[in-house]
């Protein structure tokens, strides 16, 4: 899957894509914050949130397989980052890995962190799969993110494609001359291509800046869009917030 097609479900008409991007973004934040705020050991509420995410994915026509594949990369990072819990949380030793003792409490905490991450990551994957980058930017603007951040993200997004194209061209040119057959040569080639790519990025940046100046740029990239909320989006968001609220409330009462 190329990053070029990450938003491939944005064009699919679904109950999710019919809501405004800001509602989708807020819904994602609600789910992620909800799962993070669950008290430790609240497995049932966590399962309810995960089920809600799966239902949203189904409504958005994002196949479960795609959801799984796209979540895997960041999930591995969370897995590695939280693996320390297995041995750092004190408790009854369950088994030993060399000198490290894995406690049952550590295992449970580790599994719960992964569960929380699954909800948040799946929600984020649904968001980026159903929302194009320009729509996401508009959502950020609606939520009053600093203009300098949204403007930089916007320009960066466009430049990313240009730079990747240039890197691909450099790579093709090198391969066409049989470059990079051995692992050492491949590493050298990668260094060479990266250096050439950076140098090109620098001159590209300079040329783009000139093109901006030529059209009256004076230090600010003005925003063009504003989006209007509709009843459907409000209703969907309110329902989601209520669901997460009830799940959280229930979890805290039970704990």
């Amino acid at each position, binding site marked *: 899957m190329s990053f*070029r097609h990450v938003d491939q479900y944005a064009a699919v008409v679904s109950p999710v894509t019919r809501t405004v991007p800001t509602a989708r973004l807020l819904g994602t934040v609600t789910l992620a914050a909800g799962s993070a705020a669950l008290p430790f050991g609240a497995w049932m509420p966590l399962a309810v949130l995960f089920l809600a995410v799966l239902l949203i994915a189904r409504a958005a026509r994002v196949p479960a397989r795609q959801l799984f594949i796209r979540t895997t990369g960041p999930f591995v990072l969370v897995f590695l980052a939280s693996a320390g819990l297995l041995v750092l949380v004190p408790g009854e030793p369950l088994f030993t890995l060399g000198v490290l003792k894995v406690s049952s409490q550590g295992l449970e905490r580790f599994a719960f962190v992964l569960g929380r991450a699954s909800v948040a990551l799946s929600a984020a994957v649904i968001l980026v799969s159903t929302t194009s*980058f*320009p729509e996401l*930017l508009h959502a950020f603007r609606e939520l009053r993110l600093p203009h300098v951040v949204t403007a930089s993200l*916007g*320009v960066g*997004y*466009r*430049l990313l*494609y*240009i730079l990747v*194209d240039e890197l691909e061209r450099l790579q093709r040119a090198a391969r066409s001359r049989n470059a990079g057959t051995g692992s050492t040569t491949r590493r050298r080639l990668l260094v060479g291509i990266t250096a050439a790519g950076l140098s090109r990025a620098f001159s*590209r940046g300079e*040329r*783009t800046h*000139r*093109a*901006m*100046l*030529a*059209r*009256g*740029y*004076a230090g600010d*990239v*003005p*925003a*063009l*869009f*504003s989006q209007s909320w509709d009843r459907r989006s409000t209703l969907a968001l309110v329902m989601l917030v209520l669901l997460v609220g009830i799940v959280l409330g229930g979890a805290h009462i039970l704990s």
Partner: protein
Amino acid sequence: MEMLVVVSDLSYRYPDGTAALNGVSFAVAAGERVALLGPTGSGKSTLLQHLNGLLPATAGSVAIAGITVVPSTLRDVRRRVGLVFQDPNDQLFLPTLLEDVAFAPLNDGVPAHEAAHLARETLAELGLAGVEHRAAHHLSGGERRLAALATVLVSRPAVLVLDEPTGDLDARSRRRLVGLLLRREETLLVATHDLGIAESLCRRGVVLHEGRVVADAALGDLLVDRALLERYGLAAPLE
């Protein structure tokens, strides 16, 4: 005849000391279509960037509609001169085409809804209606070139300055672009080493060589002067 562009004894040296322009002088009348001819490295792009005040003259001057290009007049000058860069990717840097085309009007203080309207109108004029919300990397080379043109036409400039406008276009896209440009009324200055495009668009040619104007005449006369074309690298010598 009213002279819209006046370049007087213009010289420019790059910061490393390389002389790019050496005493260039010429004038372009309102409504005139001029081809700036010369091989790669002759100083065409450098000259074009002076018309928009992107590069400061080392010596000499440039005036657009009577306004001398100096730091205090850059805003006015850039409103009058629409510069289309050689690589459309340099010009299309925002996430959607509509934002890219509305960029100049927004910088001029036009309200957002009006800028969006102007941008849509300009894109439609160039046959790009319906792709407003696409990113430039989802367009074909020809569409990208037209989109880059739209980003300057939206400001209704008095002078349209194009740097190698057909370099990466196939025959059909070239025809489409030439057809569109021929219908426009702006004063046109086209830098190219493609004599076919120059002939299709312009009546007058200015030949640059090593940063100097070496010929300035009716394009028809220049194109039949085989010796001149060969001498300045605009045509290959006959075998």
